[in-house]
């Protein structure tokens, strides 16, 4: 049994609703992400996927239950938990290189200790020729690659990803997914990845957690059995892939219908 890195124990979270009262976003959610595991959280919009990430990041605190990192409660954000957002959230006043090295520069690391790594990551994400450019001079995909390098450079034990490729076009998204699994296979960082794209989840994850409509709960936990490195074309020919995708789609569609207030078909 591997070591659990992230644990949510009976977590509930409410937000003040516009108008009156409070809306329950998460209701008694329990989940575990093991060390070195790649887990995708899948669910309809508004089901609380991002809230789970914000709790683990330490931006928010649960109303009930506990959010643990290596068995210790999470109280605030820290550099051992990197995060990649849906938007790149780069700093437009810094060059790409200064953006990527932002983490180690803030934590006061010796320049010699991260310089070589920074160049390696810039190369890995294909931005070595754009290190002196400013973020606004890059395309959307390039910005998100810079954000990926920035999150990974401080060598976080855990990486939280909030639909990081959701705003990219289909081709760029595929390339980013391959880049992500490529880096992950070298580093084996624990990753919790939020998405609403079933194919993306099946290509990336060791395990897929399907969430219910709000108030969010973990409806199913499915292991993705495909060997790595995976190839998106070969996956399609695998009969297990079709079956798994059908199961997940069924659950996702049911929950999406519930969140829209429709009767399941």
């Amino acid at each position: 049994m591997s070591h659990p890195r992230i644990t949510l124990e009976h977590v509930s979270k409410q937000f003040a609703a516009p108008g009156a009262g409070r809306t329950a976003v998460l209701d008694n959610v329990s989940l575990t992400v093991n060390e070195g595991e790649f887990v995708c959280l899948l669910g309809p919009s508004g089901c609380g996927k991002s809230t789970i990430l914000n709790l683990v990041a330490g931006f928010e605190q649960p109303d009930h239950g506990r959010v643990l990192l290596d068995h210790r409660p999470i109280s605030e954000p820290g550099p051992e938990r990197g995060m990649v957002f849906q938007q790149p959230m780069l700093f437009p006043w810094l060059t790409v290189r200064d953006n990527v090295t932002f983490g180690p520069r803030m934590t006061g690391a010796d320049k010699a200790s991260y310089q070589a790594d920074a160049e390696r990551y810039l190369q890995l994400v294909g931005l070595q020729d754009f290190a002196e450019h400013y973020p606004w001079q890059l395309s959307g995909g390039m910005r998100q690659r810079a954000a990926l390098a920035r999150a990974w450079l401080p060598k976080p034990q855990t990486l939280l990803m909030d639909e990081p490729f959701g705003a990219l076009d289909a081709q760029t998204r595929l390339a980013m997914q391959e880049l992500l699994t490529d880096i992950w296979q070298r580093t084996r960082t624990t990753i919790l990845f939020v998405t609403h794209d079933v194919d993306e989840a099946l290509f990336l994850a060791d395990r897929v957690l399907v969430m219910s409509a709000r108030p969010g709960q973990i409806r199913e936990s499915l292991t993705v059995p495909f060997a790595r490195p995976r190839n998106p074309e070969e996956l399609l020919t695998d009969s297990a892939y079709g079956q798994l995708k059908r199961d997940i789609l069924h659950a996702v569609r049911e929950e999406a219908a519930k969140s829209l207030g429709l009767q399941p078909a």
Partner: protein
Amino acid sequence: MLWQLSGSLGWVDPLLLPPPSDLWQTVQELAISGYRQTPLWQHFAVSTGRALLAFAVAIALGVPLGLAMGLSPLFGAVLNPFVQFLRPLPKIALIPLVIVWFGIGEGAKFFLIFISSFLSIVVGASAAVHGVSQGRLRAARTLGASRRQQFVHVVLPDALPEVFTSVRLSIGIGWTSLIAAEMVAANSGLGWMVINAGSYLRTDVVLLGIVLLGLTGYAFDWLLQLLQRRFAPWTGRDA
């Protein structure tokens, strides 16, 4: 063209609207012999000097105060009613009080220009902090930035373009109150020149003064845009 013709052909009384040719004569006359014994350049220098000093102090005090109000909700809530009460007041209404407080010397003129630009800089800088991207702040926090580092490396540069914009607007407002300031027992300055010439029906001097006031205000704004491009080139850029 139309302006010149209107005067030359006698459509409009030159007393009501002196044509550009008359204005040019006035420029030459004032440049040589001055207006009321004071050369034109000196009127200009006195006014810009007064204004620039007041702007400099307003920026130096207003920006930090506004940032502090934006950062600390308590501090902001305490000071905001005073700022919001004073800011929309027509500064001419303050003249009698200002004379009682500061006399009729340079102090009163400085204060009138200062207070009008200072108050809007405070409001602008405080709003700039509220407009700082929460996403970028969160990104900085996950990268291990301390509270001080978040302020220096994210809040300040993220707010800078909007601070520049509010300074540009505030300097426009401050320049407007130059007239009010020079109503207080002055004997030189562009604002005083306009008021004084008006009471002697020297509309050519009035118009010249207006043109110079406008051009100077324009030059201030141009200079600030230059500074903004130099020090905040990421203004309006997405990342």
